[in-house]
C-alpha cells in the first residue's frame, strides 16, 4: 500500500505518523536512539552527522518544550537550526502555509520540523516539498505526534524490555490527543498485547476500539494489573463545560493518585508527555514518586529525535559508529 512516509525502497523519507510504519523502522529508530543516549553524558555533546545541514523548526502553533528538544537534538547532531514561530508572524499577515514553506525551501533548508493546529498539516507540507527535503511532524491537530509516541515506547522499552508481555493503560483525554494516537500505534506495532484506554465517554473518539485498544471508564478496573500507565494532558479549556463538569470531579474520578496507582502492578511505571496539570490529571506525589519516569522521558526525547533526524538525513541505520561510545 502507498505510504507517503516511505521512499520507493521502503526507507523512511518523512516522519508524519506512526500509523502504517513497519515494526522494523520503529525498532531501527529506537535502536539508533540507544546509541545517542550516551552522547548527552559526554563532555562534548556533539556528533557531526548533520554538519552542514539546516534544520528548520516551523511552529504554526506555540510550543516551547517540543521546539526546544528538537533544537537541542539538531544541534547535538551539528546541524544549523532556524526557529520560526509562524503563529506569531506570517500567518497573522495572511500568508498561507505553502507561502511560508516555499520561502523556506528557497532558503535551502534540508529538514522541516513542523507543528500545526490542524490534523494533516504535516502530510500536506510533505506533499508539497521537493524530494530532498524531509518533514518531521512535531504535532498536527489531534492526529499525530510521532516523536512523542516513539520516545514513550523508548521509555517503556528501557524499563520494561519484555514488550510482548505488557499491559499498558492510557488515561485521560484521548479524543483531543495526538499523543494518545501515536502512543497507541507505537505500542500495538511493537507487539504490546494489551493496550487500554481509560476515560469518560466524552473524551473518547468514535470507534476508538478499532485502533486496537480496550475501553474502560473506571480507573479501578482499567488499571488492574497494568505495567505502564500513560497519563494524558487535559487542556485547561476542556476542564469545565460540556465535556467535563469540573477539574475537581475529573481529578476525583480519573486523576492518578497514590491510592489509584495501587490498582496497577507494584512495579508499574507512570508516564506523562508534559506539561502536567498537577492536581487535575495527576497528583504531585505520583508525578514525583519513585514509579514516575516523567523526567527520563524528556531526556530520552532528545535521543529519539536525534535518531529520527539522523536516519532521515543519511539513511543512518546506526548513529553508534560516529556517535562514539554509547
Amino acid at each position: 500500500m502507498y505510504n507517503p512516509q516511505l521512499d520507493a525502497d521502503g526507507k523512511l523519507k518523512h516522519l508524519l505518523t506512526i500509523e502504517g510504519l513497519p515494526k522494523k523502522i520503529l525498532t531501527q529508530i529506537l535502536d539508533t536512539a540507544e546509541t545517542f543516549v550516551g552522547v548527552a553524558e559526554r563532555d562534548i555533546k556533539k556528533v557531526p552527522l548533520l554538519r552542514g545541514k539546516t534544520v528548520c523548526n516551523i511552529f504554526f502553533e506555540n510550543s516551547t518544550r517540543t521546539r526546544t528538544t528538537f533544537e537541542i537534538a539538531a544541534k547535538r547532531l551539528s546541524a544549523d537550526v532556524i526557529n520560526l514561530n509562524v503563529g506569531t508572524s506570517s500567518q497573522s499577515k495572511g500568508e498561507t502555509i505553502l507561502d511560508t514553506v516555499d520561502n523556506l525551501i528557497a532558503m535551502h533548508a534540508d529538514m522541516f520540523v513542523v507543528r500545526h493546529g490542524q490534523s494533516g498539516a504535516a502530510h500536506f507540507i510533505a506533499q508539497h516539498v521537493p524530494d530532498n527535503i524531509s518533514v518531521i511532524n512535531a504535532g498536527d491537530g489531534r492526529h499525530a505526534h510521532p516523536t512523542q509516541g516513539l520516545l514513550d515506547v523508548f521509555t517503556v522499552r528501557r524499563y520494561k524490555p519484555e514488550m510482548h508481555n505488557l499491559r499498558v493503560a492510557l488515561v485521560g483525554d484521548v479524543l483531543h490527543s495526538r499523543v494518545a494516537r501515536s502512543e497507541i500505534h507505537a505500542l500495538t506495532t511493537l507487539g504490546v498485547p494489551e493496550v487500554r484506554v481509560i476515560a469518560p465517554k466524552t473524551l473518547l473518539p468514535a470507534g476508538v476500539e478499532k485502533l486496537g485498544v480496550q475501553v474502560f471508564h473506571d480507573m479501578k478496573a482499567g488499571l488492574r494489573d497494568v505495567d505502564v500507565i500513560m497519563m494524558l494532558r487535559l487542556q485547561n479549556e476542556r476542564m469545565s463545560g460540556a465535556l467535563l463538569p469540573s477539574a475537581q470531579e475529573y481529578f476525583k474520578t480519573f486523576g492518578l493518585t497514590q491510592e489509584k496507582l495501587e490498582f496497577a502492578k507494584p512495579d508499574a511505571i507512570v508516564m506523562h508527555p508534559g506539561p502536567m496539570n498537577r492536581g487535575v490529571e495527576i497528583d504531585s506525589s505520583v508525578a514525583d514518586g519513585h514509579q514516575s519516569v516523567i523526567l527520563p522521558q524528556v531526556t530520552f526525547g532528545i535521543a529519539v529525535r536525534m535518531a529520527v533526524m539522523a536516519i532521515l538525513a543519511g539513511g543512518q541505520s546506526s548513529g553508534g559508529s560516529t556517535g562514539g561510545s554509547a
Partner: protein
Amino acid sequence: MKIHIKNGHLIDPKNNIDAKQDVYIAAGKVAGIGNAPDGFVANQTIDAAGLIVAPGFVDLSARLREPGSEYKATLRSELQAAAAGGVTSLACPPDTDPVLDEPGLVEMLKHRAKQLNLAHVYPLGALTRQLAGKLLTEMCELTEAGCVGFSQADTSITDTQVLWRAFEYAATFGYTIFLRAEDHYLAQNGVAHDGEIASRLGLKGIPAAAESLAIASILRIAHETKTRVHLCRLSTAEGVDLLRQAKKQGIQVTADVSAQHCHLTDHDIGFFNAHANLKPPLRSSRDKNALCQGLKDGTIDAICSDHTPVDDDAKLLPFAEAEAGATGLELLLPLTLKWAADQKTSLSEAVAKITCHPASILGIASGHLGVNADADIAIFNPQQEWKVSASQLKSQGKNTPFLGLTMLGKVRYTLLHGQVTYQA
C-alpha cells in the same frame, strides 16, 4: 430551425419510451417522436447512431457562484459546464454573496442566465433572511421573481419556532422547502464522518445522528404543518430509513443524494485528501450502500451533482481548513450511470433519477420529451471512456475527488430549446 435526431436510442422514462426512435424538433419544441410530422423538412440532422437520446438533465443542486464569488466561477463558465454535462435545467442554492433573499437579486440572476442561454436556471430563494434562521423572507415576491422553492443551503435553522413558522408560511402558498438536514450543534466544526477514519486522522467528526435527528424533526414539522419538503443530499443509512417510513405514512417528502455520495466513503479521505472534504461529509460504506439501495427502491427520488466549484487556493490547505465542495455538473451523467451499473438497474431508471424525478420535485415542465415539450435534450454515449482532468473540465472549479479517474459515459450533444449548446 428544424432538427432531426436520427438513429438514436430514445430513453424518456416519463413517457415510458426505451426504444430506437427518431426525434423531430421544430421551433424549440418536440414536434414528433418516431414519425416525422407532416411536411417536416429538417435544417439540421444529428446522427445519433449508437447514442442515447434523453431529456436534458435536471440538477437539483448546482452552485454557480454568482453573485459574489466570481473568482471561484462565473455564470458563464458554470453554465458551459452544465451544457457539457448534458444538464439543461438546474436549481441553485441561495448561499451566494449577497444571499438570494431579495427579489431583485433573483431577477438579475434569471436575466443573466437567460442571456447566456446555456441552461434554465431555477433559483432557490433563501427561506430566512441572510440564511440567519431568524426572519422569514418575502416568499411570494421571491416566487414572482423566479424562485421555485426555498432553502437554507448548508445552514440550519436552530430555532424550532422559526422553523415551524417558515414551514407554515410556505405551506400557505404551497411552496416547497428544500433543506439539507443537519443538527447545527452536533455538526459544528466537524469535517468528516464521526467514525473510525475521523478518529484515526484526528479530524472532528459529524455523527450520523446529526442528520437523522434533524430529519426526524423536519419530518414531524412537515407532517404537522402539511408542508411539502425536499431533503437535500442525504448521507446516512438512518436518514434513508426515516425517509422510507415517512413516505409510507404519506408525508409529502422527497429527497436526493449527491452523485459523489453514491460512490465514495470516508475511506476516500486517504491521507487527508482535501478533494474529499464535502458537505455533508463522506460517510461509511454501510451508509453509502443504504443510499444506493434507497435510490434503487425509490425511497430517494433523485441524484444531484452538488456542483460546488472551489478555487485551488481554497483547497491547498490542511483538510479541515480547506473549503468543502467539488465540481460536479460534468460528472453527473457518468456517476449516475455507474450507480445504475453497480446496482444492476436499467439505463431508464438511471435517466429518470436525473430527469423527470427532479423536474417534478422542482415543479417544472422539463425532464421529458413528449410532443410539444421543450426540446431540451442530452445525447450521450454510455460506453465512451474519458479521463477527468483539469483541462477536460469546462467548469472553473477543477477540484473533485474523481480527478484522474476514468469515467464511462460522455455527453455528445446538448440541446436547449432546440438549439445545440454543446457538441463533442
